[in-house]
């Protein structure tokens, strides 16, 4: 198992290096950054001087190694637009996005899994049919449309919830949280639902189809034949066997939540990383864009690593190797 973790970690490093290369390539192909740094009337000599000061005249692989070194040491460069360190800008925006994603993921898991179990167990029930129909909406409607519809209903027509922003935040060290104020919590509801709705319906449908599959298994029939209670059979035996595929998809989806937060954050003017990224694109703020890219990739890699480790917790068949089965 240790060897497995090491192998996975090495793979992760490789993935991160590839993403870093793409992020680095952004600088190379998004026009000449020198143009954006110097005055319009700068001479060619002035430009070349700046170029060699910044090391931009060296071969690209040397530049890439410098870029990697900077990434690893947490030096992400300065924003072209505002001139402050990118690390600082991201650190300001990160809590907003992570809080939104965590709430959306909780929403997706705590609604999606029970709804999936229910619809799997009561296949022909009226409530199941209703939930499946509603879930079709969640799967098929685009995020921005759902967000706008929610704003229309709950912010504009009913006036219950704010239509944009994070509300009041409290700073705990560098972390600004919206969990501790009433307006912060209220502001979270609509964006979290918007962001998590697709994942909720996806997880629900996945759990449902896995449940239907597992409930047909011999060991479920045998568990019933042993006289176990419905609760033990459905939740102890059936649900646990659906977990491996559900963990896989749910893990990927949480990574997806971070990436898709861009749309939700734009619709709700949520001051998170996604919103920052959109602004960065508008201003061709390459250091911010490439850092965002690397950071999102890092989240994906970490989540995937956690998912792989969760497999071991759930499925004993992966754990063995050492104790060889005796016949």
């Amino acid at each position, binding site marked *: 198992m240790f060897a497995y973790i090491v192998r996975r970690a090495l793979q992760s490093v490789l993935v991160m290096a590839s993403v870093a290369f793409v992020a680095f390539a952004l600088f190379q192909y998004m026009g000449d950054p020198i143009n954006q740094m110097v005055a319009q009337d700068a001479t060619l000599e002035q430009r070349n001087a700046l170029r060699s000061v910044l090391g931009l005249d060296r071969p690209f692989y040397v530049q890439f190694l410098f870029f990697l070194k900077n990434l690893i040491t947490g030096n992400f460069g300065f924003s072209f637009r505002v001139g402050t360190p990118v690390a600082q800008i991201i650190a300001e925006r990160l809590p907003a996005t992570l809080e939104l994603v965590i709430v959306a993921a909780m929403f997706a898991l705590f609604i999606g899994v029970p709804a999936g179990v229910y619809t799997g167990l009561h296949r022909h029930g009226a409530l199941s049919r209703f939930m499946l129909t509603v879930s079709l909406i969640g799967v098929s409607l685009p995020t921005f449309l759902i967000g706008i519809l929610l704003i229309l209903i709950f912010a504009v027509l009913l006036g219950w919830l704010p239509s944009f922003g994070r509300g009041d935040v409290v700073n705990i060290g560098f972390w600004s949280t919206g969990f501790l104020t009433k307006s912060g919590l209220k502001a979270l509801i609509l964006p979290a639902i918007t962001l998590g709705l697709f994942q909720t319906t996806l997880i629900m449908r996945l759990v449902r189809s896995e449940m239907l599959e597992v409930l047909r*298994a*011999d*060991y479920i*029939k*045998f*568990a*019933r*034949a*042993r*006289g*176990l*209670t*419905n609760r*033990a059979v459905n939740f*102890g*035996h059936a649900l*646990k*066997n659906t977990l491996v595929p559900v963990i896989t998809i749910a893990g990927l989806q949480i990574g997806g939540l971070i990436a898709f937060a861009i749309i939700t954050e734009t619709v709700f003017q949520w001051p998170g990383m996604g919103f920052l990224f959109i602004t960065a694109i508008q201003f061709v703020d390459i250091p911010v864009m490439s850092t965002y890219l690397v950071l999102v990739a890092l989240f994906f890699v970490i989540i995937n690593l956690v998912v792989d480790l969760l497999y071991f917790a*759930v*499925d*004993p*068949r992966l754990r*063995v190797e050492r*104790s060889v*089965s*005796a*016949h």
Partner: protein
Amino acid sequence: MAALLEVDHLRIEFPTRRGTLLAVDDVSFQIGEGEVLGVVGESGAGKSLTGTAVIGLLEPPGRIAAGEIRLMGRRIDNLPYEEMRKIRGKQIGAVFQDPLTSLNPLYSVGRQLIETIQTHTDMTPTRARARAIELLHEVGIPAAERRIDHYPHQFSGGMRQRVVIALALCVNPKLVIADEPTTALDVSIQAQIIALLKRLCREHGTAIMLITHDMGVIAETADRVAVMYAGRIAEIGPVRSVIKDAKHPYSHGLMGSIPKINDEKERLEQIEGSMPRLTEIPPGCAFNPRCPHTFDRCRIERPELMDTGVTRASCWLYANG
């Protein structure tokens, strides 16, 4: 012998779009305390369905359309789910065909044993665990104290079936439904498992309903045997009589298909044709198109089980008069 299980005119139907299929038609038999009843027949003869109906686990849309099942005189075929659940495992155990898929792969065998014991008794976890180890010992699993914490995939097929038997017998049920318990196993393991099942049931006075298509297993194990054909019982009687002197032409043909060690014949006898599909069961005796002795009455009127001397067969050849 007092009847432990009585199945009376059992009828199992499957409603389909093209009409109702009769999978088990008017089947009656009894199993006495500690008795081993073998149930043989081809695939689709209704033997597994009958067993499933006894433990109350028929899958919808299949349903018991008529008849009664009684355990120790108490009717159990119409019990609410929760009442029947308490009987399953506690009074009627079950062993299924495939030991590889009968155990939940995610839980250790000990946990599965302990949860079953604790479902039916109020033993403390410590005592239930001690009992589980004892059971594993009893079914012949070496180093049970260590093996109890192992997962199903760490056991071989034969060992897993031993665990399944331990699970079926863990609270000393009165009856075990063993549905093809050895079919998925190596031939060399089959005899061991059958011997184990037989020994344990004799020691605990447990009756067995042994469902199989293997006449060899029946001959070794059963006290009585019921031969099923197209959802009906063709013949039922003491195992020796059915094997040596089958009265029903179908069971006679079936016994003719068992290889004998000192037989000079090159080819085994076989019954011409195949069992009809449930949708195409002919009127009269279901076996009449394949039967060498068919006469007019067989094509019109359905034979009930009638005495033939030692066994009872549903065949007009034995109609009185």
